[in-house]
């Protein structure tokens, strides 16, 4: 019974989370001081809406002249039909903006999560195995220090190192504008070159946290009976390290990865800002600056859905790794 009820419960919980999200992404932007129509003003040019009638008309166009409950009803109604609204600052459909920015964030977040998980799995086991030795100490001190550095500082350091001092990588953007590549492979390489620094930043940041956890878990496992048995049976070292010790430590790692997804999304926002990477982070930062309610609502919601979806995947992976977790 327990196994059968749990998916229902988690579905209900996800539903509740989603409902809370919808309310939050609607309410929070409106709690910010500032006027969304100010996005149409232009301090540089001196262009501003000076005609009160026009102001009313534009407010009505975006439904901002209505009381909040009606605005909320309109927003939820739009969501139900898949309409995320129209950006005030960018004069474009929010769904189109999300479609243009989301793939870049996924390209950054997905590989960063995979790479950091794989790296901390391997490094964590090796460090725990050789605990107390130089390699372990270096990794421990280095990664602890790395963990203390905020993403945007790390990003700036990498930017200075590999794009300014040793200019081998592009400094910003996701690809070279208007470049005429000879082949699809060259175009792919261009995207790859632009991805290296943002991806390295995010991966290093995530690895730092996961590594410490993985090392700690493996250290705890090392003295376990099954490890002694494996050694007594004369199993090869690699097998004992990565299968026996690693598998025991995999579950806590996966749980941590689930938690890290939200941090990865948050980290991506900062990393994208430093590298002018055109992902959801850039979209969100501009929308916050412009108080662009429709974009804030749409982008936060989609990003939150991505985090929920990846969490769900991690949850499924955890069940697959350890069927007991489904039963417990």
């Amino acid at each position, binding site marked *: 019974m327990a196994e059968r009820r749990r998916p229902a419960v988690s579905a209900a919980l996800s539903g509740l989370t989603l409902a809370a999200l919808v309310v939050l992404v609607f309410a929070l932007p409106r709690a910010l*001081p*500032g*006027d969304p129509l*100010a996005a*149409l*003003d*232009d*301090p*540089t*040019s*001196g*262009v*501003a*809406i*000076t*005609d009160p009638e*026009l*102001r009313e*008309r*534009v407010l009505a166009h975006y439904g901002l002249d209505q009381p909040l409950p009606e605005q909320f009803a309109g927003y939820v109604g739009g969501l139900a039909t898949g309409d995320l609204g*129209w950006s*005030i600052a960018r*004069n*474009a*459909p929010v769904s*189109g903006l999300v479609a*243009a920015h989301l793939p*870049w964030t996924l390209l950054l977040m997905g590989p960063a999560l995979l790479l950091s998980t794989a790296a901390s799995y*391997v490094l964590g086991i*090796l460090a725990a195995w*050789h605990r107390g*030795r130089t390699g372990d100490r270096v990794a421990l001190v280095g990664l602890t220090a790395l963990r203390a550095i905020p993403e945007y500082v790390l990003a700036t350091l990498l930017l200075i190192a590999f*794009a300014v001092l040793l*200019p*081998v*990588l*592009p*400094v910003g*953007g996701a690809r*070279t*504008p*208007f*470049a*005429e590549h*000879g082949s699809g*492979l*060259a175009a792919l*390489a*261009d995207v*790859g*070159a632009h991805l*290296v620094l943002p991806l390295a930043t995010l991966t290093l940041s995530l690895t730092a946290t996961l590594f410490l956890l993985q090392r700690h878990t493996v250290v705890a496992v090392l003295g376990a009976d099954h490890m002694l048995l494996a050694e007594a049976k004369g199993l090869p*070292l690699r097998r004992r390290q990565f299968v026996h010790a690693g598998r025991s430590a995999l579950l806590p790692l996966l749980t941590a990865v689930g938690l890290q997804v939200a941090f990865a999304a948050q980290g991506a926002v900062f990393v994208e800002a430093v590298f*002018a990477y*055109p*992902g959801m982070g*850039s979209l969100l930062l*501009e929308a916050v*600056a*412009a108080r662009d309610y429709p974009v804030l609502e749409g982008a936060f919601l989609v990003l939150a859905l991505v985090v929920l979806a990846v969490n769900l995947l991690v949850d499924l992976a955890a069940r697959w790794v350890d069927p007991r977790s489904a039963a417990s």
Partner: protein
Amino acid sequence: MTRPTRRSSLAGLLVVLVVALLACEGAVRSPDDDATAGAEGARIDADADGQAAGDADGDDVGGDAAPARVDRLRLAGGQWGSPTPFGYVRGPGMIKAGLVFDTLLWRDVDGETIPWLAESWEVADDGLTWRFTLREDARWHDGEPLTAADVVFSHDYIAEGPGGAAGVPHVGRVLGAPIAEVAAEDERTVVFELEEPMASFETDVAGLWGMLVIPEHVWGDVEDPARYRDDDAFVGSGPYRLVEHDEAAGSYLFEAHDAHVLGSPLVGEVAFVPVDDEPRALARGALDVAEVALEQGVPEAQVDALAADFAVVEERGQWNMALHTNLEAGFPFDERAFRQALAHAIDRADLVDRLLLGRGEPGSTGGLAPANAWSADGLPAYEGGPEAAAELLDGLGLVDADGDGWRQLPDGEPFAIDLLASARYDTRTPELVAEQLAKVGLAVEPDVRDPADADERARAGEYALALIGYGDVGADPDVLRLRYTGEPQAFSAAHGFAHERVDELAERQRRAVDDDERAAALDELQAILAEELPVLSLYVPSQLGFFDPGAFDAFAATPGCPPCGLSRNKLMHVTGATTLER
């Protein structure tokens, strides 16, 4: 036991390095990466990638010699919407849409109105009838002829059709104009009948900031113009056609429309490239020109380094940082003597030296940029310094009665002022202003807020003193009417200022039929503003740009067009010259 670990880490590092190097290798054909590889502040060889520049070396494009065609001009990009007539965003977006869609008239860098789609125009003596004659060979990009009926449609679509709901600047200007009717007299003649004379008609309706002319055969059936993005939404009559637009990255590529009414454009492609920082992008060869926003606080070393490597263009500015006093905040803000004391106490020349590296000028007390052709001469400059300020403050009863160094209100209560400012600009400005006012015993605390918050407070008048930046002081002087009369609507409006004579003069200049009449009204209006000082323009930074003269060298500021910057007036892209007759 440790050796395998080291070996695998090394192997991993190698794989990453090889992948990174391969990735760099693959993109060598692009201008951006070329530049990345050569980023030592070195000058770009714009021809190296075959994309940047033609061989305009040595040509004097502003002179008599016909300039050579420039293959591609690379300017700073950004997210300014889609360049359709209703899909663009704000001033910089309008400049991009203006490459594709023409207006009847345009403006050169001398500030002169020049013929564009219309080859000639005339206004009746009463200022109510404007008649435009279109060029004979005007056509849309799709080959259809452009007729007077299209011009009539362009107006009616906004005034009576769905175009009026789009929140783009030219729509607001057309709706705000007192136009009674627009009619086509024949295929090439279109007549605007006004309800009352409008001095800024040439600019705000027919010209630079005015109505983009759109094809009736495309927009006739479009019900939701802001959202219309089909291929034909980009069919205009302008000198360029949109080739590529990356909404997420903020890049635009326009290619010349060789059949344009003014002839085949000199610049073959205008590329707007997304960059993080213009000077850095110029230095690494990703841009052909970098415009420097002095108001954001630019390090002197950076300006010097750019000046050493590139050609410099510096023009008098059109943007200003102004000190707004909200007269509704009560005593002493509603006292003229208090506002004059502030003007004496603030050393504006010092602000220009310290904040703008001397590249700029103190603002005019009349409310327009000193370089504005309508700016009045001989206005008071309030250069009396702390002594003159102290005398005025003493006269108001604002004295330091308890000897703590700070002036109190006449009733002995402490007097502390919050100075609202936006984090969008150099935050040393509020600090320096507070420092200068402290010298006369005024306790001023900078209140720097995030831009959206500061703008909203400025718009709502939630301040006693505020530093507000805006770029319309170089524009048509009708901005004085918008700023100082009526209910404040914009963030740049003066709050609590009501003056009957100002209202009268503002209306008179708006309806003036000839320039002398307008100038007389504006001179008196500015004299009153300089006396009353609801707003004190502190400084106007120069428009400063750096470029590689080998690529293209027709860069100049266009009066009344801040988003034109030094490089974005399409006249220069079309003719390579800064005036129409070269």
